[in-house]
């Protein structure tokens, strides 16, 4: 399948990192891509205001799955403010594949899920 989206996406899809639930997450959120019905759930564990662990779940296409696999690695150690503003371009660059415009929302689905988790946490803290 690497012919389709390149080596990085194929590798992360075949063996996703950080896949599966956390035993007791501090924050979690499932985001839906209304275009296709894909779902990505992001779960976060915090230590002193920083992301200590991030995991994901859900049923999604190769692009969204690979993006979630990469994102959950990239945000480790970030504080919530930084993670909430995670730049889509950074994730798109990490995927190392020129995505067609119709597939960019697949790649950014995990960011939206993570933002939802952080927003929920902030809502609960308020």
């Amino acid at each position: 399948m690497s012919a389709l989206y390149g080596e990085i996406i194929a590798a992360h899809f075949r063996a996703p990192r950080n896949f599966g639930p956390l035993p007791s997450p501090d924050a979690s959120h499932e985001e839906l891509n209304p275009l296709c019905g894909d779902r990505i759930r992001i779960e976060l564990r915090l230590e002193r205001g920083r992301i200590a662990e991030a995991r994901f779940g859900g049923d999604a296409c190769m692009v969204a799955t690979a993006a979630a696999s990469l994102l959950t690695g990239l945000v480790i150690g970030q504080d919530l403010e930084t993670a909430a503003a995670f730049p889509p371009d950074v994730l798109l660059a990490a995927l190392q594949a020129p995505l067609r415009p119709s597939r960019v929302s697949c790649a950014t689905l995990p960011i939206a899920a993570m933002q939802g988790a952080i927003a929920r946490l902030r809502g609960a803290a308020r």
Partner: protein
Amino acid sequence: MTLSRALRDDFPILGRAVNGVPLVYLDSAATAQKPRAVLDAVRSFYEEHNANAGRGLHRLAEESTEALAAARETVRRFLGAAGSDEIVFTRGTTESLNLVAEGWAKARLKAGDEIVLTEYEHHSNLLPWQRVARETGAVLRFLPAGALGALPPSPASALSNLLGPRTRLVAFAHVSNAVGTLLPAQEFCQAARARGAAVLIDAAQSAAHLPLDVRALGCDFLAFSAHKLLGPTGVGVLYARRERQAEMQPLLLGGGMVREVFLDRATLLDGPARFEAGTQPVAELTGLSAAIRYLEAVGLAAVREHERELTGRALSLLREVPDLSVYGPPDAAARGGLLAFNLRGVHPHDLAALLDQRGIAVRAGHHCAQPLHRKLGIAGSVRASFHLYTQPEEIDALAQALHDAHALVR
């Protein structure tokens, strides 16, 4: 007998390449490609006749008004309606369905009345009814889809069993846009009429693909879009039988639909103009006329036969692809010209992307029919859909690409 491949020369876009290979356009259920006759009709309207219809008294305004009337008459003939006053122009099937829901049902339905739909409905024939039910207290009932999206056993009697003294409307997709199932419209109309319920047919996926006759069917309302019928985007039709139309209220108020206006009140025109406030898209409707004439020249029965053959070929070829599930009826005669499928372990979007690399255009996702996909236990599917210009070799190319995709992921 499939239709002559020479028809393809009438569709300029079919000559283009995608990713360096010839386009294989299998997404006609989303929108159909346009023959030159339609493109020429739109262009010549703008070049020779353009003016605001139904308003001015100058020559061009008269020609534009005549073009609008001619379009209405063309649609009347196409649908076998009693009069062209039964043809209301809208922006498309979605607006047509919303017009029946908001303009007819909402004021007429009471708490406890029943609207009968099917599990095959496109969101556009579901959400408007959910709102009507919420706001009137009417109840929605659903004819269940059968196994794998095929028809349930004895569909007409299954439907009859859902109908009761409070059933006010039966509304259904003639052909499921998601899985291709052809619903027995004639029998459904009879069952509804026997109970005194009105009938609305969503003909978005059938109007361009098989012969329709609203009087033979006996429906009250029928909706379709021009763009799936080889015509322009942005225009559609609501057939509303005279008695029902007289019960309808317009969604939009404004110019072109009034008889007399005072500062504090107005009286509205009768007939279709009542529902067509604002400047009408005459160029697009001229295009719709040309599309209908093109379809009629080919012959709707011939189009149906062509697509039935293609669908039969696709069903038998796709059955040979390992790990591929096809949804909907196993028999082409029980389908419209489309089919949906999944390759085990491959997300529909990824499969569609693989096909796109071969120049094969398909739809992937839930096809605006989430409840049906939920019933089938899948998030989405890949859909290949055909039209009169689709050729058997394109079906073969799809089947070969699916074999290759299977080999790639195993």
